[in-house]
């Protein structure tokens, strides 16, 4: 995949910046954690 193939994001990410990808992953992980805590008992 070449860089120029995508006008948005990079060849390795759909996000324009690493920080944005990190925050996206952090939000996804928190949502999963809340879901697990809510739906699964200890």
């Amino acid at each position, binding site marked *: 995949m070449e860089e120029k193939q995508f006008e948005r994001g990079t060849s*390795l990410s759909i996000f324009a910046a690493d920080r944005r990808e990190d925050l996206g992953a952090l939000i996804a992980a928190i949502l999963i*954690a809340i879901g697990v805590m809510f739906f699964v008992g*200890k």
Partner: protein
Amino acid sequence: MIYTKKSPALLIIGILMLVWGFLNSSGNVDGMQSWLQQSAYSDHMKVKEKFDAEFRVAKEMAASEGKPAPVMKMAASRFDHAKAEQAKLTYIVGGIFAVLGLLILVWTPKLGDFDYYLSIVPGMAFIVGIAFVVRWGLDPIFGNWGKAAIPLLGWDFAHIFNLNYVVLGIVIGIITVNVFSIPGWAANGVRTARFFLKTGVILLGVLYSAAELAQLGALSVVMIGIFVLGSVGMVLYMGRRMDAGNSMTGILSAGVGVCGVSAAVAAAPVVQAKAVEIAYTIGTILVWGVGCMFVFPTIGHLLGMGPVQFGAWAGTGILNSAQVAGAALAFDPTGIETLKVAEIFNITRVLFLPIIVVWLAAWYVKHEVGAEKVDLKQVLIAKFPVFVLGFIGMFALSSMGAFSPADHYQGKYFSATEIKEDKLLKPKETVLLEAELAKMKTPAETAALKDLIANRKVTSRVHDGALLSAGKVAGLDPLAKAVIDKAHNAAWHNSKTIGAFRNWIAWLFAIGLTGLGMQITAKALKQAGGKPLIIGGIVGTVKALGSLIVVLLFVREFV
């Protein structure tokens, strides 16, 4: 630029998933599933046999009393749960993909965010679909083949070569891109791979707990600390000297220093490693690890090492967890002492992962931006990967007992209060143990056995440790040993919460690594060259020899 490509691919993937869900819930693929999930199916047959027997008795009793046959339902087995999970996942995910696939076919895309994010879904579906095939198909197939080959080879090749969903996901990704190439409709969404991987790494923090470190022996912590930090530092130094590139050096240091493949995967997004660098690191670790697995036991026997010494050496010197267990079993196939010691050392180094992740994040930021010349604090604030903080946050929450008891390790924990009534020892079993009291070798073993007899369960982790050695006392009645094992198993529990997290982590890694594998072309592999193999080989040799010398000098009969 309009990103969404009108293609029926997403709809087809969605429908295929729905069909798989239906086949599982209707029982039409039970034959195939029983072969793929042999262990779960074997449990299922046991549950079924027990149920059939109970049902027959209940029916006969009802008949003798002139009552109609009772209505009874068999309890769901592990096999039933596994099939139900496949059906549930494919119904949910396949349903979403099918609906969005229809939308792509009927909607006329317009420039904007919706077009961009919708165009990502087919690529995501492509890697998710392959990850399903890898986890539900290839992983168990190789697992079965590995076990089937044991009589011929004497060892489980699938386990030793790590042919699980992690490695298979990357390999399938590599084959896809190099043999078939990524279809145009999927190209945009395949770039979500790193996002999945980062989410998985954040959640990985829940598997570890600082409190578990306190349970480990001081010697293993000190020894592993020196060798983990030493080998990470050595790779970082050599990588810089040999100009191997910061990301390649960073990921290799985690793989060589901590616990092999899983550490490399966890460190990859921290040092922004390219897919090809991950592949090289895993290749180096596996080649080196498998070599060690064969060489270590031979050297151990030649030097006349005892189980404690060899376990300590294997747990420190061998790079990857799978091969640590393999080497320990190869050295001492019947006893459990070597394996136990090796695993203590192995667990200790795995617990160093959070420290290494933070170290590498700071190291990478510093070297990548040439931070020697600028304010390091400012650079760290601007560039430090935020998801690492998420990993540390999860680790902290896990250590505080937010998800499971604070002293758990990967969801397994000791609790004497949670032992169910039917798991307590029966009176005839305690009588059996009383007859063995005189055979105990140490006061600790005697005290633990007396406590077990009095309470019909293991009441503390200290007693549990003493009972482990009591179970191996020479001349012990095999039935008594089985009773001690039963008591040990009853006191150890698996956290459902951590089990659910593990499942999520496995999926996120399987999807992420399949997508990353699709970024590894033959050309990229050639460009990366052989430096990682050289660095990994040198550091691996130094680590193996260094740990051997330390073990021979300092490790005797204590851990």
